[in-house]
């Protein structure tokens, strides 16, 4: 512990100040200072993450009136809510819909974002700022507001999209009334809202690939497609996987778009975990079961995060 005590010279102590000086010494230790300085962050993390998570787990074990543990028939007492969910068709539909929504939306966002980033990267620097600013707009508008705008565009009575379709002779589409169209609408809005985030991350990653690697590849005989495949993508792999993980977490937990656009309808077929948890817990008043629904997001995301971050660490070790 010599290093810990090395920050300040130790004063010769007066006979009756032994206690004070040892306190002073404790306060001067680097480890003490480090703990003190992390306390605000720890408080925030405990208050906003650990406590709600723990409380959520506790809630999920209670019965509807929250007077005791939820009894289970084949699972131990306290896990009764999960038992009911496992047996519920709606719940499995929600789980299925959450996965379809999150995975397809993230893939589409990544593709659109990558395409936009590539386009931007090849615009001369002068015009680039203007386009970058404009393309970021969807991401900056609060999604509840922009989703309302989309809702109008999808609304069967005033749908501007359907009006356009009519003008060019395409049959009208029941955007929010039919389950696959409603699911697609939610994905479209989510992609529109989230793609700029991918764009800006990928643009930064593209700019960090040294130009000479492309030149070396061009001389080595690579076509532009091969340069993308063998230089750009491997060089961006870390950013791509971290962005995808981050977006997967946010998209999986998405609430506002579903809530505003379809409110889970038609027939609960567009619910995702968050909107279904809200419906069960708040609207139907069964808070413990709502908590149990929302807890299902955690293991799925934890597994994704584990694999993505493991890949990132491995690549970092090899390349950086």
């Amino acid at each position: 512990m010599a290093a810990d005590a090395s920050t300040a010279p130790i004063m010769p102590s007066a006979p009756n100040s032994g206690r004070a000086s040892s306190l002073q010494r404790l306060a001067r230790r680097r480890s003490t200072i480090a703990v003190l300085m992390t306390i605000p962050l720890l408080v925030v993390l405990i208050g906003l993450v650990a406590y709600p998570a723990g409380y959520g787990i506790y809630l999920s074990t209670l019965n509807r009136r929250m007077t005791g543990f939820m009894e289970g028939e084949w699972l131990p007492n306290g896990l009764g809510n999960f038992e009911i969910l496992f047996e519920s068709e709606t719940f499995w539909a929600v789980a299925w819909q959450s996965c379809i929504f999150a995975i397809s939306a993230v893939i589409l966002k990544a593709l659109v974002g990558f395409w936009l980033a590539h386009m931007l990267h090849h615009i001369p620097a002068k015009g680039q700022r203007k386009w970058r600013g404009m393309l970021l707009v969807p991401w900056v508008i609060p999604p509840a507001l922009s989703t309302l705008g989309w809702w109008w565009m999808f609304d069967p009575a005033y749908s501007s999209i359907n009006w356009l379709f009519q003008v060019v002779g395409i049959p009208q589409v029941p955007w929010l009334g039919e389950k696959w169209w409603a699911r697609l609408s939610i994905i479209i809005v989510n992609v529109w809202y989230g793609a700029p985030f991918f764009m800006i991350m990928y643009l930064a990653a593209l700019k960090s690939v040294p130009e000479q690697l492309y030149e070396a590849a061009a001389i080595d005989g690579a076509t532009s497609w091969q340069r993308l495949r063998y230089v750009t993508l491997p060089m961006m792999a870390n950013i791509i996987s971290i962005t995808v993980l981050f977006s997967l977490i946010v998209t999986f937990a998405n609430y506002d778009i579903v809530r505003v656009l379809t409110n889970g309808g038609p027939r609960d077929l567009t619910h995702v975990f968050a909107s279904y948890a809200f419906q069960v817990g708040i609207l139907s008043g069964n808070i413990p079961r709502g908590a149990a629904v929302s807890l299902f997001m955690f293991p799925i995301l934890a597994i994704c995060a584990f694999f993505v971050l493991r890949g990132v660490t491995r690549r970092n070790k090899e390349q950086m």
Partner: protein
Amino acid sequence: MAQVSLRKIVKAYEGGVQAVKGIDLDIDDHEFVVLVGPSGCGKSTTLRMIAGLEEITSGDISIGGTVVNDIPPRDRDIAMVFQNYALYPHMSVYDNMAFGLMLRKFPKAEIDRRVKEAARILDITPLLDRKPKALSGGQRQRVAMGRAIVRDPKVFLFDEPLSNLDAKLRVQMRTEIKKVHQTVNTTTVYVTHDQVEAMTLADRVVVMNHGIIEQVGPPQELYHNPATKFVAGFIGSPSMNFIPAKVEQASGALRLHLPQGIVLDVPAARTARYQAHAGKDVLFGIRPEHLTDDKPTDKSNTAPITLKPDVIEPMGMETLVHFKLDGTEVSARLDPATPAAVGAPLSLIAHMDQMHLIDPTSDKVL
């Protein structure tokens, strides 16, 4: 293997700045040509135009008799070694070297044979499985060369390949490059700002300045017969001394009048050459190694000169002594045994058969 020829090559950027101003150059098959010059002289731009990484504003570049102006880099059959190596960080050394062959759809066995052969030549066989991150600067440089060698291209292009290495490694790698060229014997164009690299490596040196070629020739030719003041000053280290002088006629012979009343006799063999400049102001150019101690066995073609040292730099095998001659810096390379002291007059001799006279208006060597 191929010849490379440049015809009236111009590179102009937006706003009219010309980096290369219409150069002509012919490089023979198997030849090692070094483009040398200060930063911004257009040497790298020229190399990049040969590679196809820069567009040519006007003129023609041909490789092996084919004009390649509109042919993309991948179809020019060239290989390039970059200053910062440009190795693919996510590929192993083996894959870095095999990449170009893989893209050209060579059979696996052939790729393997070529990579291992190049690794043997460059002594990097134990490194084949490593990633570039795990290599030292010198090893990365070898891999970059290996990537060029395996392709067996028509032309090797080197863009300041040793600039990122420390001084000791640079000397070592310079020898390696020369050895590799002697082994594979591919036509090579090499760009550097270091005249020592140029002199040691080149079959022919191309000295560039401000986008034009000042002189092309074998290293010794450039050293002994520079065409311009720029070449005279650029080639050789420390660089040539330029002292203002006046040529005077004196009973059938010529004499040079230098500042501080110093008078030097022009060798008889040069009289005819400089006769037309009698009475005119010129620059007297002499290399530091041709201003030596006053003790040669053969004193023909020498002229005595006495100067007071300003700064003395002992280098071990020689001592550099700097003088001031009416504001002009003059340096001499002396035997370390010479008893030189700052401020004390020192008798030297100028080897006048190695002198140059330069026209101060045109900067041409007379």
